[in-house]
């Protein structure tokens, strides 16, 4: 059993974006999703600092210092892309104009509660960024995260231990082991990596899992 690499996790989430969707990518791992949309499929990426139509990262040494994404990395603008001010960027988010928000997460509960802003640490200042606005405003929120914390603790929880970003907002979770839907009937396993079975995944997950009738192997290319 080989868990997905971070690039493979980003690849897997990218496959589910549909043509014409407006998509906001959170900082960190989700930012990579941009690089793995199938060729020819037009997806419009939104950055909360005021960009629609972000393209891939520029070639090394070729970027424009004033053209950065929400993670402060250099990016590019596709034909059809636009710049606007920050207030309009969040108007789009809060107003339900963003089809999908893909965010990293510390924890997701079986009700879709999201915890991704405060670690509870008193050593480093907490920061929320746009996570609460995205969680409240995007039409769908997908979480993209390692299935377990470094110490093995489950990150899919009955209830979140960490402070909430928003309650009941996550619809789908992509991890390095599985693809799971948060539904009224519980946490449904859609895909699992080769070599893992439901019992094995359940041991790594706090709430009771339900295996979808049409579940599939989670298959990704070498990246």
């Amino acid at each position: 059993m080989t868990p997905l690499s971070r690039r493979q996790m980003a690849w897997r989430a990218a496959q589910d974006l549909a043509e014409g969707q407006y998509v906001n990518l959170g900082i960190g791992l989700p930012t990579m999703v941009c690089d793995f949309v199938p060729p020819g499929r037009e997806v419009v990426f939104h950055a909360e600092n005021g960009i629609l139509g972000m393209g891939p990262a520029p070639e090394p040494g070729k970027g424009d210092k004033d053209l950065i994404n929400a993670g402060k990395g250099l990016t590019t603008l596709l034909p059809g892309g636009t710049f606007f001010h920050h207030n309009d960027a969040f108007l789009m988010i809060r107003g339900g104009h963003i089809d999908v928000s893909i965010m990293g997460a510390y924890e997701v509960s079986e009700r879709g509660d999201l915890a991704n802003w405060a670690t509870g640490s008193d050593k480093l200042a907490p920061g929320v960024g746009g996570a609460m606005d995205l969680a409240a405003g995007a039409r769908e929120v997908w979480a993209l995260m390692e299935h377990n914390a470094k110490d093995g603790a489950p990150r899919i929880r009955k209830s979140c231990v960490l402070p909430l970003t928003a309650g009941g907002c996550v619809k789908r979770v992509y991890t390095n082991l599985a693809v799971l839907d948060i539904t009224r009937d519980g946490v449904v396993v859609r895909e699992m990596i080769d070599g893992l079975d439901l019992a094995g995944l359940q041991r790594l997950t706090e709430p009771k899992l339900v295996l979808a009738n049409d579940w599939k192997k989670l298959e990704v290319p070498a990246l």
Partner: protein
Amino acid sequence: MIDKRVEGFAAALAGLRDGDTVLCGGFGSIGEAFELIEAIIGLDVRDLTVVCNNAGSGLVGVAALLKAGRARKLICSYPRSTDPQVIDELYARRALELEIVPQGTLSERMRAAGAGIGGFFTRAGADTDLAQGKETRTINGALHVLEQPLPGDFALIRAHRADRWGNLVYRKAARNFNPVMAMAGKVTVAQVSEIVELGSLDPEAIATPGIFVDRVVVV
């Protein structure tokens, strides 16, 4: 003749006082008026409340101002951006009051101040720790929190080009918080790269009309 150009930072910052709220544009370090913000350090003002999306990067701009101990409080959404050495040190010492605000709410609170809105309801953060002590209300089945306008005594922003009326255009993603802070500042000072002839900016493409700008300084 209307001429909002000023020479030098002393003129640009004239009237800044102890206890003032200063809105500082930029996202990460892009679009931040480093030199203008750092010029505060040379003035005898203290106890500022700084409003900025982040807490500065490295040792420049907002980070330099905070390091110099001129702020009593920081209102921001995401203090730990690129190279957060200054905020990390201040936070460890609890030497700075910190108010964390969801990024969209931060922006919207400043817009409300600039737009004459007395308060607004948003779902963002309504069911979280950040709504503690705030009025909440269920609207159409969803919990909302009432958020307050956030005006600045000064807004220190950065733009690409200006004219003598204070009309501003920005470059790409360097626009970010600057237009909304321009709206919310009682005194708005724009640091720009270039001043052009009145009438040479495209009237359809001016991102900040001069009505929001009081002073322009070329850096």
